[in-house]
C-alpha cells in the first residue's frame, strides 16, 4: 500500500531520476517494510516516505543527470571554450543575488558621493576652488559692476601689479572694443577713463542698466575679492594642525582647515569685517571680535592665547 502511494508521489520526480533510481527506491521501501514492523514503526515509515518524497524534490530537479560518458568527454575538452552547459542552466540564485547587491552598492555609493558634493556647496572656496555656479555668478557679477577696471591686452601682459593679475580677461563685447581701440581710450563712448600709474585702466559700463539691476536684486556681494592666508599657532608658537578657522561676516561664513604646519588660506574673500573663530575637535576654542580683512601680501599670524582669546597679527591693509 505504501509502495503504491510512493509510486504516485514518485511521478512528481524528473523522468531521468525515475528511470535511474525507481528500482532502487522501491527496493529500499521493500527493505524498510521488511525490517520495520509494528504499528509505531509503520506509521513512522509512512510519515518518513511522504515527507521525503517532497523534501527530495528540489535536489532531484537540481541534478543534471548528464551521462558519465558525456562528463568524461567534457573533461577532455576542458581547454576549449564551450557554451553547452551554460545554455541549459537557468540563471542561478547566487548570480542574481550578486548582481542585485552590486547594483545596489553602486547606487548607494553614487548617492553618497552626490550628497557629499552637495554638502560642500554652502562652504564656498573652502577647498581653494570655486564651484561652477559660483564661477558663473562671479563672472556675471564682475561684468555688471560699472567700475570694473579693464586692462588693455598689451598692458595686462606686462603688468603684475594692480591686483588684477588674478582676473581673467572679460569675454564681453566691451573687452573686444577695448582691444581694438586701446590706443585711443579717451574716445570710447561713455567711458569714465582713469589712468592708473603706468597702466592704462579704462572702466566701461558693460551692461544695460536693467540687466544690472537684475543682478543687484540677487544681493550678491560686489566687493574686492582677495585671498587671505596665514598660520595658526598656539601660545608657544607651535603650529596647530587640523583646526577649523571660521570667518563670519556679512556675506556668510567661510571655513578652512589648517594644514599640518598650521597654515591656512582663504582663496576668495570679500574685503570687510569678519569675526574669526577657531574650532578644534568640534569645540570653539578661540574667537575675535570683528577684524577688518582685505587683500594682503603678507600672511597673517593667528595665535591662540589664554582665556579663549585669539590674537591676529599683521592683518592685511587695503593697498
Amino acid at each position, binding site marked *: 500500500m505504501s509502495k503504491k502511494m510512493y509510486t504516485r508521489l514518485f511521478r512528481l520526480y524528473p523522468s531521468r531520476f525515475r528511470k535511474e533510481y525507481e528500482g532502487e527506491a522501491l527496493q529500499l521501501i521493500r527493505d*524498510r517494510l521488511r525490517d520495520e514492523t509494528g504499528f509505531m514503526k509503520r506509521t513512522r515509515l509512512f510519515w518518513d516516505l511522504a515527507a521525503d518524497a517532497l*523534501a527530495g524534490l528540489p535536489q532531484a530537479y537540481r541534478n543534471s543527470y548528464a551521462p558519465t560518458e558525456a562528463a568524461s568527454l567534457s573533461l577532455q575538452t576542458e581547454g576549449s571554450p564551450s557554451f553547452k552547459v551554460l545554455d541549459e542552466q537557468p540563471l542561478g540564485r547566487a548570480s542574481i543575488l550578486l548582481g542585485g547587491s552590486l547594483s545596489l552598492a553602486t547606487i548607494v555609493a553614487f548617492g553618497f558621493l552626490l550628497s557629499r558634493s552637495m554638502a560642500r556647496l554652502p562652504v564656498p572656496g573652502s577647498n581653494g576652488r570655486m564651484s561652477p555656479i559660483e564661477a558663473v555668478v562671479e563672472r556675471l557679477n564682475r561684468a555688471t559692476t560699472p567700475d570694473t577696471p579693464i586692462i588693455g591686452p598689451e598692458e595686462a601682459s606686462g603688468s603684475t601689479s594692480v591686483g588684477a593679475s588674478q582676473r581673467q580677461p572679460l569675454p564681453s563685447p566691451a573687452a573686444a572694443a577695448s582691444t581694438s581701440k586701446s590706443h585711443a581710450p579717451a574716445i570710447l563712448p561713455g567711458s569714465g577713463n582713469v589712468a592708473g600709474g603706468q597702466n592704462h585702466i579704462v572702466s566701461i559700463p558693460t551692461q544695460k542698466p536693467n540687466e544690472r539691476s537684475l543682478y543687484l536684486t540677487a544681493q550678491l556681494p560686489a566687493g574686492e575679492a582677495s585671498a587671505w592666508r596665514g598660520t595658526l599657532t598656539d601660545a608657544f608658537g607651535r603650529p596647530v594642525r587640523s583646526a577649523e578657522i571660521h570667518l563670519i561676516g556679512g556675506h556668510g561664513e567661510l571655513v578652512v582647515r589648517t594644514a599640518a604646519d598650521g597654515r591656512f588660506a582663504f582663496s576668495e574673500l570679500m574685503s570687510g569685517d569678519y569675526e574669526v573663530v577657531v574650532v578644534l575637535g568640534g569645540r570653539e576654542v578661540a574667537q575675535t571680535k570683528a577684524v577688518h580683512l582685505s587683500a594682503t601680501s603678507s600672511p597673517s599670524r593667528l595665535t591662540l592665547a589664554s582665556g579663549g582669546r585669539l590674537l591676529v597679527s599683521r592683518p592685511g591693509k587695503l593697498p
Partner: protein
Amino acid sequence: MPKRKLDPLPAAAFQIMLALADGDLHGYAIMRQVEEQSGGRLRLGPGTLYGSIQSLLEGNLIQEVGRPADIEVRSERRRYYRLTVTGRKMARSEAERMADVLRVARARRILRGDYV
C-alpha cells in the same frame, strides 16, 4: 556546476559520505548507517537518498562500483557506492570546518568539555 549544488554541503550528503568512509555500501545500507551514526535523527527516504547520491556522483565525490565479490546472490540487483579521493578530502575539510565551529562554541561556554 555540481560544485555549486554541494556548496554548502547539505547535511544528508555529508552523512552519506561519512557512511561510505568505512567501505562500499548500497542504498539501503547507507540509509541504515546514516540512521545509526546520527542517533536515529536522520532517516533518509528514497527521494533524499538518491537525490543526494546523484548530486555526489555528478560532483565526482562518490562513484558507483561493481558488487563486491563476497556478497551473496540475493542482493545482486543493488548498486554499491564508494567514496572517491576527492570526496574523502571534501568530507575531511567539512569535518574540520565543523570542528572549528565546535571550538568556538566551547570557547563561548555553550558546550561543556565532555564533548569530543
